């Protein structure tokens, strides 16, 4: 008798779920009413304030690290003089051309390897071998091959971007559910139709993850590449500032790198949200 009372409903809420459902309601009045997205910014803000306070108190010497206020002022000044925008354009140009080449190459190779056995035999083994090379270690070779102009910089970015795109798109293509391919074949799709309607859309989520990696890798390559005898670009700005002990300008450069990386990541996420609207995690009734 008591057993039947303890189990409330056939499919029903287990006691644990009911308790969970009760929790937030009980705890919420005590919490700050800041939305969760803003709450995440509290601790970084506190850190910056501590940094500023330490600089003002003389605990951090300007030649070790400039105060946040100095950094902001320098950023503003560099923007007004046009110095920062012009270097930024140079760096952006390098990343975009490198990415363009690298992503295209990665996509092309992944399509060849992913869509045909013969292609896989030819392309995949060398790619898997090359990817174990830390590509940044190729800088000396690149300098010998391409000199110290723009070419080695763009080549390095391209190389950094190509591998993540290749690896994720290839595994994405191979990971498409064979049952879906089979069903689509029954319903009359030819090979082209299969690739267009089943295989590529199925590989897209994985490829977009690869694109995010590629962007991260591209920025990293850019930082390294711009240490090679650059006469323009954010990396040049940083190196130049080092000569004059301008830690404020160095930090401005680092911040710009960080913001560019963040911006690129946000862009891919936006693309994901658009292109992958069908995914269960994104679908809303």
């Amino acid at each position, binding site marked *: 008798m008591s057993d039947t009372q303890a189990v409330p409903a056939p499919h029903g809420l287990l006691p644990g779920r009911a308790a969970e459902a009760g929790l937030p309601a009980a705890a919420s009045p005590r919490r700050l009413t800041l939305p969760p997205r803003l709450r995440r910014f509290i601790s970084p803000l506190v850190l910056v304030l501590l940094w500023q306070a330490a600089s003002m108190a003389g605990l951090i010497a300007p030649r070790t690290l400039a105060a946040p206020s100095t950094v902001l002022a320098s950023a503003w000044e560099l923007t007004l003089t046009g110095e920062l925008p012009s270097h930024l354009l140079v760096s952006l140009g390098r990343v975009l051309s490198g990415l363009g080449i690298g992503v295209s190459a990665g996509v092309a190779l992944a399509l060849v390897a992913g869509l045909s056995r013969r292609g896989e035999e030819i392309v995949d083994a060398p790619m898997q071998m090359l990817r174990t090379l830390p590509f940044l270690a190729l800088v000396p070779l690149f300098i010998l091959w391409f000199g110290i102009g723009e070419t080695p910089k763009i080549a390095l970015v391209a190389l950094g971007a190509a591998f993540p795109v290749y690896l994720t798109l290839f595994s994405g293509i191979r990971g498409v559910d064979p049952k879906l391919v089979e069903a*689509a074949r*029954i*319903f*009359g*799709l030819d090979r082209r139709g299969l690739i267009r309607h*089943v295989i590529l859309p199925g590989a897209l989520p994985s490829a977009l993850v690869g694109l995010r990696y590629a962007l991260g890798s591209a920025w990293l390559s850019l930082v390294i590449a711009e240490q090679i005898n650059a006469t323009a670009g954010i990396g040049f700005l940083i190196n130049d500032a080092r000569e004059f002990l301008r830690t404020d300008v160095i930090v401005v450069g680092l911040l710009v790198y960080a913001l560019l990386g963040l911006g690129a990541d946000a862009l891919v996420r936006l693309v994901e949200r658009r292109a992958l609207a069908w995914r269960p995690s994104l*679908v809303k009734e």
Partner: protein
Amino acid sequence: MAPANNPAHNAAPLRVRNLTRRFGANTVLDGLDLDLAPGSFTALLGRSGSGKSTLLRTLAELDPVPKGARLDLPRPVAVAFQEPRLLPWKTVWQNVALGLPGREARSRAEAALEEVGLSHRVEAWPATLSGGEAQRTALARALVRSPRLLLLDEPFAALDALTRIRMHALVLELWRHHGPTTLIVTHDVDEAVLLADRVLVLENGRIAEDVAVELPRPRRHADPGFAALRRQLLGALGVALEEAA
């Protein structure tokens, strides 16, 4: 033998001769012969591993026709699987219209969806569908091609009991309306007796039992004759019922 051009049936006879399939040392289908009348509804029972799915895959031309076998199959064929196998990145109507040529693909898809009672879900993503809705979408996708051979591979096995009852009624209605030669693979004896005119039991790679179901429709479990058929088929599957009716 040419397919019958009988205007009363949107179907043709199915004829299989000497179908043998081996996987390594394992003979799954052993010189199997099969005839299905145009527009008939047949259920194929068998224990797991009896080759039901292999036979269905061969009929759907998912596997190559083995040497020595002769197959005359009504075309076009459509299949509904145990899992709905909808493309998650296409909306419900796009899934139904998959592979349809021409401009009226969408209106044909919508008509098929209306027939299975899913007019309100035309633009939905598959991830938002219930199990029954997804399976009805799969049925609409099969029907929209006006198949003359409809193959159902345990299509209701993953559905809950109530949904399954509704799906049985829907399948029968669609079959009566469109009249394709229909073959359902199932391991549910009750489902076979409820739906089919003829029940085949596959064993050792051949048709071991061929039972005509002559119960009037709509059929109910309580019908006289249902229990007898059920017992006979379960016996053929090697399940002896202890309690005598």
